[in-house]
């Protein structure tokens, strides 16, 4: 089974091909009708209020038989992937994975580069340069593999219900399967280049699925924005890959990391450069501070897509990549510092924006950005295990939250504004309960998943040992993190309060239409809620043998023996104290919501907003970051740069054609002079000569008969005279 890991990504790939081809065939047969689709004629139909509405074009029902095929192929292929993934993991064995077992399946030599002289910068550098198409199963990829396939499968099942009435059902499942393929390639890749293939593949699928409702300009724009912003990150990532290749002569994880572990200290500057480049890539993919702007806009895609791609799996690829390269990052304290500061700042920054959002998915989107910041903060302080642990628990509760919000949107026929919700707790009970469990989990309520992972991060930040940072920095980061935890609890409960509690604020007609979602949607919710509740139990601290995830990931993430000892060094009492602090902060946040929104109907926050309108406007408008980017990059560097380049073109580049023209002109001037004086001189000279001759002989032509007669006579006389004289 473990030798069949190459098959895991291939099932969704096959599903993508089948779904895509069937959809295309079906689409072609009724292409005529689609051409006259009223949406098609108004691509920017912004006036409709149903942005992100799942039934935006439900009038185009697809054929039941092809729908059944899409359902079977779409979910079945991912189910097979999931089975094969778990089969491979258990075949290899969790205990052996914990001992550092690594199983590599090489399919073929992908890019053979031949033999080269080693540059000798790093000992152990391979002289043969090549890239294999190889998959790697070790504890880190096993963890990712397990939850990606499982959560992916659940979300596919959910999509059957959510997208059931959509005309693009087949297209949707084709994209979703392609995404699963790319994500699994990313997770299983055994080298940087194959990882990059998966990385770009998930980026492409993200673009395709954000712009799924391509007839809406907002969705198409959001897709483009995500793609462009990700390109910026990918630029850094690919530079990092080049750096790795230049330094180690290989892109294979095993060879690079073993070479890096034995690397001398003088490669640290190179390491810093490489790691910062890699981290820029991670920033793009995982929506960290300068490059986070695409993720909130990505909510234009269908909600299951937001759950799968923009919460649970794809956006954590950056964290996975940084964790995968932990050997490199550990060699560069400066790069770690950058990761930690960016992560901590993003966590707090996004959490504050989340306080003032009124779109249910936007709140969750900023929450995702904030939680991703948490994960990077953990990686930055060296707690890669805690970071990956949070990736796992976050996948459960954030997928549950997104799917729950999708269920709410589904029940309200596309309404996303939480100001027009309320009182849904008794109308859609299952959704409410699962949503509440996930909210408690993300808020860090004890014994639920988020509590353990968040606590592990907070503890790690508190004890962080950052050699190149000022000594106060870990405390500042810790304060930011715990403040973020309080904010998270606050805005999540504000969301629950406005959505599910109180009375319904929409119209009565809408209220009658509210129905619980179908079984295909609620079952995944229940499973994910269960996992949100118990998923954290794989990493219970303090208890001996409780930290199973730490043991599992230790071979990959804690390769140095001393670090493994250090991880368990913290005193139990200190850990309990930190736990108490985070619980207290979370409780404070929840209580504030209960008091302000539960009883006071939101008067206090409204008063606060009215008291500091500038602050509120800044937060509600996301600190005007989008506007600033628009002004600086789009208008400034983009269009202004375009104008600048135009000027350069007009002045510098045009020198070439203008110079050529001047030279041509000079030559033509010389040529015209030649023509004027030499050629014309010949012609005119001839004419002048003839004219002079004409003037000379003209005088003989007097027109007087008598002159002619005289000349005749004289001539005759002369001839006779000559005749007589020279006879």
């Amino acid at each position: 089974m473990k030798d069949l890991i190459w098959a895991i990504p291939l099932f969704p790939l096959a599903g993508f091909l089948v779904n895509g081809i069937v959809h295309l065939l079906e689409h072609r047969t009724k292409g005529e009708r689609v051409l006259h689709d009223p949406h098609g004629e108004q691509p920017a139909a912004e006036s409709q209020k149903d942005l992100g509405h799942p039934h935006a074009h439900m009038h185009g029902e697809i054929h039941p038989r092809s729908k059944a095929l899409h359902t079977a192929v779409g979910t079945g292929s991912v189910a097979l992937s999931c089975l094969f993934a778990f089969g491979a993991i258990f075949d290899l064995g969790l205990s052996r994975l914990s001992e550092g077992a690594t199983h590599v399946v090489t399919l073929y030599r992908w890019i053979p580069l031949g033999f080269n002289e080693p540059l000798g910068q790093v000992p152990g550098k391979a002289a043969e340069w090549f890239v294999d198409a190889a998959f790697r199963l070790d504890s880190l990829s096993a963890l990712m593999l397990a939850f990606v396939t499982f959560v992916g499968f659940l979300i596919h099942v959910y999509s059957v219900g959510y997208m059931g009435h959509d005309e693009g059902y087949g297209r949707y499942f084709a994209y979703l399967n392609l995404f699963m393929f790319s994500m699994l390639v990313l997770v299983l890749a055994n080298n940087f280049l194959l990882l990059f293939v998966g990385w770009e593949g998930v980026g492409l699928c993200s673009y395709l699925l954000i712009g799924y409702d391509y007839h809406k300009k907002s969705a198409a724009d959001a897709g483009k924005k995500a793609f462009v912003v990700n390109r910026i990150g990918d630029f850094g990532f690919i530079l990092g890959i080049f750096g790795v290749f230049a330094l180690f002569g290989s892109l294979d994880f095993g060879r690079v990391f073993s070479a890096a572990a034995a690397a001398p200290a003088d490669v640290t500057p190179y390491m810093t450069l490489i790691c910062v480049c890699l981290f820029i890539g991670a920033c793009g993919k995982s929506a960290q501070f300068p490059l986070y702007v695409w993720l909130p806009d990505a909510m234009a895609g269908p909600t299951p897509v937001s759950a799968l791609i923009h919460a649970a799996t794809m956006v954590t690829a950056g964290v996975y990549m940084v964790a995968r390269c932990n050997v490199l990052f550990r060699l560069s304290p400066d790069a770690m510092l950058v990761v930690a500061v960016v992560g901590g700042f993003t966590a707090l920054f996004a959490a504050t924006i989340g306080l003032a959002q009124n779109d249910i998915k936007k709140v969750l989107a900023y929450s995702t950005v904030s939680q991703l910041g948490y994960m990077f903060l953990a990686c930055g302080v060296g707690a890669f295990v805690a970071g990956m642990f949070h990736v796992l628990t976050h996948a459960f509760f954030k997928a549950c939250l997104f799917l729950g919000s999708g269920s709410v949107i589904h029940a309200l026929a596309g309404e996303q504004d939480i100001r027009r919700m309320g009182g849904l707790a008794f109308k859609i009970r299952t959704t409410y309960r699962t949503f509440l469990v996930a909210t408690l989990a993300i808020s860090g309520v004890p014994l639920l998943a988020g509590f353990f992972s968040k606590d592990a991060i907070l503890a790690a930040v508190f004890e962080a040992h950052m050699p190149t940072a000022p000594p106060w920095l870990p405390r500042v980061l810790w304060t930011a993190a715990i403040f973020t935890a309080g904010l998270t609890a606050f805005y999540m409960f504000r969301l629950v309060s406005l959505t599910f509690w109180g009375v319904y604020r929409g119209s009565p007609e809408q209220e009658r239409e509210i129905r619980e979602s179908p079984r295909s949607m609620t079952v995944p919710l229940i499973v994910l809620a269960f996992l949100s509740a118990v998923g954290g139990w794989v990493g219970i601290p303090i208890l001996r043998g409780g930290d199973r995830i730490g043991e599992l990931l230790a071979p990959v993430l804690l390769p140095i023996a001393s670090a493994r000892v250090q991880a368990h060094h913290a005193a139990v009492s200190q850990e309990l104290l930190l736990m108490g602090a985070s619980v207290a902060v979370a409780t404070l946040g929840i209580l504030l919501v209960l008091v302000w929104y539960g009883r006071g109907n939101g008067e206090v926050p409204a008063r606060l907003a009215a008291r500091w309108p500038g602050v509120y406007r800044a937060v509600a408008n996301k600190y005007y970051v989008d506007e600033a980017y628009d002004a600086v990059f789009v208008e400034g560097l983009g269009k202004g740069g375009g104008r600048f380049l135009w000027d350069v073109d007009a002045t510098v580049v045009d020198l070439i054609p203008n110079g050529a023209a001047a030279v041509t002109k000079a030559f033509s001037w010389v040529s015209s002079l030649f023509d004027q004086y030499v050629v014309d001189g010949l012609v005119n000279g001839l004419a002048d000569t003839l004219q002079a001759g004409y003037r000379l002989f003209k005088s003989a032509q007097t027109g007087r008969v008598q002159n002619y007669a005289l000349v005749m006579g004289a001539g005759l006389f002369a001839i006779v005279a000559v005749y007589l004289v020279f006879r």
Partner: protein
Amino acid sequence: MCGVRCEGSWIGLSRAPQTAHRAPTTMTITINHFLIVSFLLFTIGLFGVLVRRNFLTVLMSVELMMNAVNLNLVAFSRRLSSLTGQVFSVFVITIAAGEAAIGLALTISLFRQRKTLNVEEASTMQG
């Protein structure tokens, strides 16, 4: 030098006796005389053609020149005992009649055009 002798000598014709006691005989008219007359006539005609302004006078001068030629022809015809010259002179007279007719017609035409017969003014063919 004196005119007559020199003249006879100059022309180189048969020499007349120049004694003072020569018998009064009839003067023999030789061809030289005809040629001299013809020469004079031709010269007068040529002079008239080249000098006179009136078109009619020029025409008449041309006639003079032609008659000089006729005289010449007839004189040689007699001297050479060949009738060819005389026949030729009859042709010339005939042609001269036609020439006179054309010349008079030109005269009328010229006068109608220019209101003058001055050949100096009929010079539009100048270059």
